[in-house]
């Protein structure tokens, strides 16, 4: 970008040296003298009443200091205020294999594990709910006593305009069902936490978490201690991908144990336990009906989703909305109906994984568009180009869009891949497919409603010339520290590596809501700009007074502050800070960011709004072996609308990492469960709770990737930047499915697309039957009353015309919230 010295320039990330020398201190690398070790005893039953727990033998075991059970934890918890349904240790019943029922704290990990074996738990097994269809069919036994009814956790139903009328009037209606299997984050680092009392007796919890602020609130609440007596420090995460955005029971347990024993208490989950923690991709069954004109333009969409939520709420209510809310932000959809249902099942709970709830319906939407193109004899790239949403548009469901560079993205991958020469023209067995997507640049609302900033940054500048940055944002590998340092360095004209960062520490740093929903770049980035500009103003005033140069002529660059008209006239950055400190006093500044009010005033409209959206387009070329169904991805072309790339090295890494993770989801990764035979408790267990059996791509599976960063600055983004961590994952799965169709003419309408499914479809094809593998039907769900929200083009104001006004809500912090709509309590975005 013009005039920038740091922003947009490829450079080593600020934490690069620490990472390549092995000096980054992850949670399990923290070693404290006198540490005790915690192990959890977990349920072998998927659904059972706890009759009794006898810890008397275990108490006498060697090395045991403390045994905790559910009785020690009277307060339930959960990441969303609407579903605080988790217990640190189960009290009366277990809801999945792996639910924790007791914790042993011992001198060594081995002793803790051995003592766990000595705890006698008597269970009374209950009927198990294995999947959403069973959940719908069986109101009893209820897995939870909260939720809409029976084993239905949440049903949502929204209609924007008369969809049935539009479908009836459409030239064609395409009606497809899709299934997207669940999969997991598989971050390399196992979750770990250590809690200890500081010398003053205050409790400190170090944890591999993406959301130290939410952990802070929940652990204080669960332990019934004032939040100011607890410090939560997010260790740099060894990969997150959404898997460390919940509050976990083990965090609460070690915190409690440290309070009781007065000693550091550590836990590190085994890889199998990480699979049980899960919170990964929801399995989703979908039915998508789309009405189009004869040229393929969409007139209305009707989406139904059925989510397998697993045993707990987690982010599930938000996930349910996310399976519908972003279908409108890519192509113009004049009328839209979305109905979603999340069920409880006796399996590890699902939650947010990279793309949170949106990859599943995106897969369906983009595969269906391919089918529409084929049916109407249109080029799938052109079909998309003809109906892109407009920048700044307000969609039918009241998502306010920012910049959209999707046209350029499509054109780039079409040109780069040679699409026009390849589509429908490659030899049999070779094929090419295209798909697009969009994603948030940060959720518009925090998970507990309040009108406070979403992100805060503090700067301290002192006479050494050092700039120290404090921010609650959490480094999970994505480069959040580098984003912050790069932005402040640009504003103050110093080198990013010279900025000292202190992040993710609730004692020392201002709140940032965490590393989720792709929010850090835009939200923490804007807060960093504000803090840095305030610091620059203070320094400029000092230098101006000292040197007699007007403030607006001062340039901050290359470690100096100087006169734009006579660069020799100026001070070193350190001298400039000294001068300013003399004039102003000690220099400390803050910056805050809060998104603008959302236009979506209807219930549920809090999920989906974002200050801006990123866009991606991808073309994938595959080779399919007709004799085995084996798919080899030959090459991926991907273009991402990033606004601007703050650090192109990291931006490219986020794109390619997304493509990699998507390839795994598309072709091999699945959280498959199986039932043990009746003689072995009939439990539902993971088929693959290990990294060997849960197949993920290795170096050998990686195809060539051509990455294009499309730069069209977003006015609301810091220096024009948008997110890049999640969006580029989304188009890959459907692009692969579409490429497989182009290669061999079979449709695999479910994820993952494994060779057996292709083989089966090829056999159907050979026998003259429908060459398709996928779900046959979507169950009839009693949706209840649909919220009727007239779209903006039909005179709507963002409210449901049949919705009862809501009562005022008070969150547990005592922060009083305005009544009425989710948007009404959120103030104006802080602009720079």
């Amino acid at each position, binding site marked *: 970008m013009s005039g920038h010295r740091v922003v947009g320039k490829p450079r080593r990330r600020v934490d690069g040296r620490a990472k*390549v020398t092995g000096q980054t201190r992850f949670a399990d*690398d923290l070693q404290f003298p006198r540490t005790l070790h915690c192990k959890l005893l977990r349920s072998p039953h998927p659904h059972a009443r706890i009759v009794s727990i006898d810890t008397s033998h275990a108490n006498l075991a060697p090395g045991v200091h403390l045994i905790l059970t559910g009785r020690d934890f009277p307060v339930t918890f959960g990441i969303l205020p609407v579903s605080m349904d988790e217990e640190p240790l189960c009290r009366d019943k277990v809801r999945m294999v792996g639910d924790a029922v007791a914790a042993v704290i011992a001198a060594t990990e081995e002793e803790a594990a051995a003592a766990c074996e000595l705890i006698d738990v008597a269970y009374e097994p209950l009927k198990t709910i294995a999947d959403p269809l069973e959940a719908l069919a069986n109101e009893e036994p209820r897995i939870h006593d909260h939720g809409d009814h029976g084993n239905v956790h949440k049903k949502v139903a929204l209609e924007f305009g008369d969809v049935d009328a539009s479908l009836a009037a459409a030239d064609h209606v395409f009606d497809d069902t899709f299934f997207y299997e669940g999969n997991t984050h598989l971050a*390399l680092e196992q979750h770990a936490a250590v809690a200890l009392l500081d010398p003053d007796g205050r409790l400190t919890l170090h944890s591999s978490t993406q959301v130290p602020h939410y952990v802070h609130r929940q652990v204080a609440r669960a332990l019934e201690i004032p939040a100011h007596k607890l410090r939560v420090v997010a260790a*740099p995460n*060894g990969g997150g991908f959404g898997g460390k955005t919940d509050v976990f029971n083990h965090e609460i347990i070690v915190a409690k144990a440290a309070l009781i024993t007065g000693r550091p208490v550590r836990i590190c989950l085994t*890889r199998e336990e990480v699979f049980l923690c899960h919170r990964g991709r929801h399995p989703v069954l979908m039915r998508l009906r789309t009405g189009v004109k004869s040229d393929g333009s969409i007139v209305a969409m009707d989406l139904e989703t059925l989510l397998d939520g697993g045993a707990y709420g987690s982010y599930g209510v938000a996930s349910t909305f996310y399976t519908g809310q972003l279908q409108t932000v890519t192509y113009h959809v004049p009328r839209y109906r979305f109905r979603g249902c999340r069920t409880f099942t006796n399996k590890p709970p699902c939650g947010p994984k990279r793309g949170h709830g949106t990859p599943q319906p995106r897969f369906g939407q983009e595969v269906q568009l391919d089918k529409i193109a084929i049916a109407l004899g249109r080029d799938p790239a052109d079909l998309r180009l003809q109906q892109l949403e407009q920048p700044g548009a307000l969609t039918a469901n009241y998502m306010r869009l920012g910049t959209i560079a999707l046209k350029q993205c499509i054109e780039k991958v079409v040109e780069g891949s040679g699409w026009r020469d390849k589509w429908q023209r490659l030899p049999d067995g070779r094929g090419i497919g295209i798909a697009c997507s969009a994603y948030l640049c940060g959720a518009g609302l925090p998970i507990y409603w309040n009108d406070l900033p979403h992100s805060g940054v503090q700067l301290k500048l002192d006479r050494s010339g050092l700039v120290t940055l404090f921010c609650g944002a959490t480094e999970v590998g994505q480069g959040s520290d580098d984003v912050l340092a790069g932005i402040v360095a640009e504003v103050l004209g110093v080198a990013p590596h010279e900025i000292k960062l202190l992040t993710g520490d609730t004692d020392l740093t201002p709140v940032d809501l965490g590393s989720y929903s792709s929010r850090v770049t835009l939200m923490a980035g804007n807060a960093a700009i504000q803090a840095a500009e305030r610091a620059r103003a203070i320094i400029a005033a000092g230098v101006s007074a000292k040197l007699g140069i007007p403030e607006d002529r001062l340039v901050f660059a290359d470690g100096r502050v100087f006169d734009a008209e006579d660069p020799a006239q100026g001070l070193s950055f350190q001298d400039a800070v000294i001068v300013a400190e003399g004039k102003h006093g000690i220099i400390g500044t803050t910056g805050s960011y809060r998104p603008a009010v959302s236009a979506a005033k209807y219930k549920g409209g809090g999920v989906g709004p974002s200050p801006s959206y990123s866009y991606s387009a991808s073309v994938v070329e595959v080779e399919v072996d007709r004799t085995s169904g084996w798919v080899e991805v030959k090459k991926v072309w991907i273009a991402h609308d990033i606004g601007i790339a703050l650090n192109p090295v990291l931006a*490219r890494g986020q794109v390619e*990492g997304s493509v990699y993770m998507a390839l795994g989801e598309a072709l091999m990764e699945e959280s498959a469960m199986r039932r043990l035979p009746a003689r072995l408790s009939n439990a539902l267990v993971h088929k693959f709770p290990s990294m060997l059996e849960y197949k993920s791509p290795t*170096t*050998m599976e990686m195809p060539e990737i051509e990455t294009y960063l499309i730069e069209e600055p977003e006015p609301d983004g810091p220096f024009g930047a948008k997110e890049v961590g999640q969006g580029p994952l989304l188009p890959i799965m459907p692009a692969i499915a579409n490429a497989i169709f182009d290669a061999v003419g079979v449709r695999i309408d479910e994820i993952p697309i494994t060779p057996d499914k292709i083989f089966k479809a090829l056999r159907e094809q050979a026998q003259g039957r429908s060459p398709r593998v996928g779900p046959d039907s979507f169950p009839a769900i009693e949706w209840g009353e649909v919220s009727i929200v007239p779209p903006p083009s039909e005179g709507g104001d963002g409210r449901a015309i049949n919705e009862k006004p809501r009562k005022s809500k008070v969150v547990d912090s005592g922060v009083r919230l305005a009544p009425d709509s989710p948007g009404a309590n959120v103030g104006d975005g802080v602009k720079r």
Partner: protein
Amino acid sequence: MTPSINENARITLTVNGESKDVLFAPNKTLLEVLREDLCLTGTKHGCELGECGACAVLMNGRPVLSCLVLGLECDGATVETIEGLADDARLHPLQEAFADCGAAQCGYCTPGFLVTAKALLDERPSATRGEITEALSGNLCRCTGYIQIFEAVEEAAAKMDAKENE
């Protein structure tokens, strides 16, 4: 002379060029001895079952998964970990390249990749992309998509080669 399970084992090994006497519970793996008894936490664990490659170290110059090696097997061995890769304060060319090329995102798999790549370049200084891909196929990375890792190894190889020919 194998000690009993209740008795600590004692071995002498060379870690990053320094001779160490270590006393440890005899069931410990090399991974645990390094992290817990020698405080070398740069070596990571992702599964402790030999599946992910995060715990790779060099034993007598060859990459091994330290979670699958018993500490007892290391008496007299030479072990190199991430902490020994730099030449005093000067980073190894692989470390420089990994930092510069975006080959380390979260950094958790990075020590395992770095030592494995070093073993490769020690043996084959001008390894091809295919050889790099194969040599690193036992190391999982969930962040990068591997391509920037390949490029970093190639850049380091080129720099080491250039230096050799100076």
